[in-house]
């Protein structure tokens, strides 16, 4: 199969996946008890007002009609209107998304760096202190509740040592105008170094929280895969030829170990966004995670649906990109 055809097939396969997901989300949200309009208006509005608002939002139509209305809207890029704010859901998501993306990328970099360096060193020094520490760290980070770890960092580095800010994306008093919503990038584009440093400071604690938690998965994978490649014949022959140990580790073992890990890392980047929910709540990070939590509380159907669909599209796109990269690296994948 040519690369072009392969890409087309991958994209076509994603469509039924997205459709099934849409049906599931749509049904699950609706069978849960709780009327979004009543929740929004509280107990104060009359039944007439509630009914009028339901009609306005199309919530009085049969569920199947609502579904196809929604689907039709989605195809035109309309994610619906939030019952809480009366604003287009896509606008609200796009306002929040850069915050999550920024945090996720930052955390991902931390996770990858720790994963690759410590994981490969642990493999090289198997059963030595470096390896034991890596395994201990990995187990601890994998099992620790994210919010607890975040709170601890807030307490130590924010409250006691006063080194870093404990919440938000930027200090209230720092003048700053966003362009893309990625504050770190925007402050660079504007040449606003005060804002850049401030944003960076704000990123550190939530980024480390999320990054360290994710790094435990990478670390273990890199370690295990590197151990496997270190025991392979070509590494043994490289050793026999007298190639320096570090060169063997990074040029041969880690590089080969990374091929299968790349797929997982791609998916992990998408899952990281989902994992950002708790981190965002702990650090008052105004991203999609905290947005989703807020909307679930108020049973804001269109917003919950929109966020999940947005996530799903994001995961699918990342997945396709990863598969394409894999197909480029290893042509056997295409067959």
């Amino acid at each position, binding site marked *: 199969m040519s690369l072009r055809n392969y890409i087309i097939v991958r994209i076509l396969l994603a469509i039924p996946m997205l459709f099934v997901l849409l049906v599931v989300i749509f049904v699950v949200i609706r069978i849960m008890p*709780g009327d979004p309009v009543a929740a*929004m208006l509280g*107990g104060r*509005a009359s039944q007439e007002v509630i009914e009028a608002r339901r009609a306005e939002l199309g919530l009085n139509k049969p569920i199947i009609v609502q579904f196809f209305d929604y689907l039709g809207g989605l195809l035109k890029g309309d994610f619906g209107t939030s019952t809480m704010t009366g604003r287009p859901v896509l606008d609200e998501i796009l*306002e929040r998304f850069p915050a999550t993306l920024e945090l996720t990328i930052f955390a991902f970099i931390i996770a990858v760096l720790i994963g690759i360096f410590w994981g490969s060193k642990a493999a090289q020094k198997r059963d030595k202190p470096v390896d034991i520490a890596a395994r201990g760290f990995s187990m601890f980070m994998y099992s620790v509740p994210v919010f607890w770890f975040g709170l601890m960092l*807030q307490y130590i580095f924010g409250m006691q040592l006063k080194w870093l800010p*404990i919440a938000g994306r930027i200090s*209230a008093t720092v003048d700053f105008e966003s362009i893309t919503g990625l504050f770190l990038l925007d402050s660079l584009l504007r040449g606003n170094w005060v804002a850049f440093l401030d944003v960076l400071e704000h990123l550190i604690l939530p980024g480390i929280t999320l990054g360290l938690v994710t790094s435990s998965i990478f670390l273990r994978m890199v370690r295990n895969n590197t151990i496997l490649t270190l025991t392979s014949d070509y590494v043994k022959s490289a050793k026999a030829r007298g190639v320096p140990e570090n060169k063997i580790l990074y040029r041969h073992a880690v590089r080969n170990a990374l091929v299968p890990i790349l797929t997982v890392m791609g998916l992990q980047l998408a899952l990281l966004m989902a994992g950002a929910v708790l981190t965002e709540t702990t650090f008052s990070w*105004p991203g999609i995670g905290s947005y989703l939590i807020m909307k679930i509380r108020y*049973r804001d159907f269109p917003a919950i649906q929109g966020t999940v669909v947005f996530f799903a599209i994001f995961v699918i796109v990342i997945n396709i990109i990863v598969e394409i990269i894999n197909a480029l690296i290893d042509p056997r994948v295409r067959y």
Partner: protein
Amino acid sequence: MKKYLLSIFVLVGLFVGILAQSTIVVGTTDKIRTLDPALCYDYFSSNILQNVLAGPVDYKVNSSEIVPNLFESWEVSEDGLEYTFHVKKGVVFEDGTPIDANVFKFSFDRVIKLGGDPAFLLSDVVKSTEVVDNYTFKVTLLYPFSAFVSVLGYTVAWPVNPKVFPADKFYDGVPSSSGPYKVTEWIRDVRITLRTNERYFGQKPKTDRIIIQFYENASTLRLALETGEIDIAFRHLDPRDILDLKNSKNLQVIQGESPQVRMVVFNVQKPPFNDPLVRQAISQVIDRHLIVEEVFQNMAAPLYSLVPMGMWSHEDVFQDGSVETAKQLLYQAGYNERNKLVIDLWYSPTHYGTTEADVAQVLMESLEKTGIIDVRLQYAEWATYVDYFLNGNMGMFLLGWYPDYIDPDDYLWPFMSESGAKSMGSFYVNPYIEAVMRAARVSNDQEARTDLYHVVQQDLAVSVPYVPLWQGVETVAAKTNIKGILLEPSQVFRYYLLYKE
């Protein structure tokens, strides 16, 4: 020359000092839902509007007394149906658009036409609006309603700039200011920045820039204050955190009256709560003091009527009862130690902050002291909770109330009238009490209204569709150099009075 240089340095230093002190950062866990008065029906959105717009009437500072503002004066027709308002001349929005009778007509009609969440406050009583002349605005009511001017104190009735707000749809941008501040930056759920509106006709703000920073939870808000990220923490700190903060030398904790009331609601049509004896028995053993002490660390006050303390017509109609009286009532209702009354008590775990589960727990312990009641605690998130109580699924549950306007009517009509009780999940119906409240709505005589509201409150204690529990206390924690914090009975939090010392 040296002297001059020194003077310049001192002056520059002072100037920089003044500039540095002209910003106050306020932190909150609340959110802004909208800045359109036609849709705004939550505390914090109103709070911003109250500082950015000017209302037709206002509350006197630190009081719940209504005073003229954009409406300089008004006359009411003898039948109580026509209100003729005289608009203050020379007042403009920040872009120079004059605020006149046309602007008021545009704003009132827009609210009613759009039918947003708070629209019923006007549409339930307003029949028509009319521009008599440029500065005379007339409103005709559907029926006489003596609290109408109080309703105008709520942001739903505040004029908006027709050049900015569309007539036929909600507006999700920043309002054109007519109040002490204007919005210069709004990054949703991150921060909103207010700066002095130079065209405001009233008192100039003492601090040029107010930044409101949003936090997700109470613990982060507390940390933000303690680490100096914010100057003021306004809504909502945890009561235990407040106790800790009170001990801090660098911080001050200010508490003030709050018109917020909390209660237990009974669905009077759902067994076993359809038996008044059961409701009365429960009201006898509820220990308000224990809730206030244990859960709120005394940062609330026991309440014995739905009308809050300090408001005219308030009367303590409930009392601290006794376990013995409760037992007698339960025996009469057919329950005893062998045939126990088994009930579900519902609460919403996050909607009213972090303390609700503790309140439910204390209530359960109070009720089980009788030895005849078995309580099962149940909870549901707010959306489900509202759905349940509107559909009559819950027999006994906790609810809170923030007033729309400061008048006893807003504490009794929404609960004791048939339509109101339905929307509160109590489904209480009493035509006589409804007639009494209607008479109070029509009357312009405060003494007569007071007597009528006493009748309603006394019925509340006998019929017991609700048991009032406590009245909230508003709390603000701030750095010690922040002055001008006023927690007013009207709930208005005025940023223009704040300053740094």
